[in-house]
């Protein structure tokens, strides 16, 4: 019945949506921000801890939202570990493009890890679900307390 939805709800998404690996507040963190989608009520808070070299040592989140937003937050947390803020900003841009168009520039491991979310581009009202955690992450890195999905 929902065969054509398998593009959106790939196994990896259902799995991360159901059992996020990074779905909790970090015990110690140096950056954090909230993201908020007022139209549907999704909300996420992202936590980041950097290592001495300025790379992200660990990321985590608390979310209230759908499978897409939770899975996106979880895959994001997984992917950004070990990267610099600038690398993350660059990756966020490519991710946003992918969520909107289905196409992502590059074939590096990072974007491949996120590719399961590409299917969201066919569901305009769900694109924000996928991008919300990234908005929050960027706000955290920029030292802003809040982001919104607009």
């Amino acid at each position, binding site marked *: 019945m929902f065969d054509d*939805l398998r593009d959106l709800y790939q196994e990896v998404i259902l799995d991360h949506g159901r059992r996020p690996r990074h779905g909790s507040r970090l015990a110690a963190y140096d950056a954090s921000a909230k993201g908020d989608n007022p139209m*549907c009520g999704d909300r996420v808070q992202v936590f980041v801890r950097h290592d001495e070299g300025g790379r992200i040592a660990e990321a985590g989140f608390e979310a209230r*939202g759908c499978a897409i937003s939770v899975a996106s937050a979880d895959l994001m947390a997984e992917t950004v570990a070990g990267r610099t803020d600038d690398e993350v900003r660059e990756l966020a841009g490519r991710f946003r493009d992918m969520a909107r168009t289905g196409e992502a520039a590059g074939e590096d491991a990072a974007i491949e890890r996120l590719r399961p979310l590409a299917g969201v581009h066919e569901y305009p009202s769900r694109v924000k679900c996928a991008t919300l955690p990234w908005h929050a992450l960027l706000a955290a890195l920029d030292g802003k307390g809040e982001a919104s999905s607009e």
Partner: protein
Amino acid sequence: MNVTTRPALLDIAAIRDEFPILRQTIRGKQLVYLDSAASAQKPRAVIAAMVQAMESQYANVHRGLHWMSERTTDAYEGTRDAVARLLNARDRREIVFTRNSTEAINLVAHSFGRSVLRPGQAVLISAMEHHSNLVPWQMLRDAHDIELRVAPVTGAGELDMAGLETLLTDGRVGLVAITHMSNVLGTCTPAERIAALAHAHGARVLFDGSQAIVHRRIDVQALDADFYVFTGHKLYGPTGIGVLWARHELLEAMPPFLGGGDMISSVTWERSTWAEVPHKFEAGTPAIIEAIGLSAAIGFVESIGYDAIAAHEARLTDHALARLSAIEGVHVLGRAQDRGGVVSFTLDRAHAHDVATLLDRQGIAVRAGHHCAEPLMRRFGVDSTARASFGVYTTHEEIDALADTLARVREFFA
């Protein structure tokens, strides 16, 4: 308030024929529109009335001495008569046109709230209000030292009348503003009892009829209401037009809200004087074409009759409650005795948004989210729900389609 005894069976096929949009397919699937509580679809009569106005009888109102303007003014003012009849208002001058329920409530919050209400008084709402009947009162509270009180809602999703009364006893409440039907729980509130209680404690009472008027006959005199608001687009009418009904003497006592053309009596640099009620509350060119559409919508509803509508929707709601409750993992919010055609639910292991997306792929339109009622969501310990809501055109088969599909959604996320 004719008490009719007719069996009230709707000819649904004929009714559906009046709604061109219901023939649409969504990605190859027949549209199953279960989002009428957000906004209802429009019957041919409404579309035709608007087209006719624009094609053969249009001009600005109240200002022209020419034929087109006279006819358009008649049609616009005719809607005021139609609404007055619909609500059983004492006087057509008690009908003020607004954009929607939200603006109507804001009008009261600004005009009544900042003049008749005095700092130190309180406004009493309930825990099941739509944001539109909450945020304007918060803004009033923050700007004018008016206390905001919230009457509790029971676990069954009904208004806690004892709780309401307790909040009235100190006599400081100047206005009780309560929904006549919850857009989340479907609960209808006992408006007559609320009005009696409010009045007994010296408070005025406003009912948010946005949902209620779609499902039942409203008689503002029988309810003994002071203010009643509704919105055209949920009553099968156009967007851009809503109604504030208020007792004439209240409108007389209230200062205008918006200033501009059509609401003045005379204007000098020093001072302006206001037009008679209701015009003093209708600044600028009104939603003329939309008012004409609203007349047609009222005609449509009256031609079917509220008894038939209510009976139809009661059957649909019973059927929906029975079918949904039978699905494992589905939880319906609220179980009020007196309810209209709105059913909110959650599904274990699946977020409401995901549920809505899967249903949508089968052409089934439901709404998911907080339904502009965040505090109520918290009251029931949920972030969001899916909501199916019904109109005159909704069929048993559509509810079956929802239930059948929902069972598959459950498997998908199992």
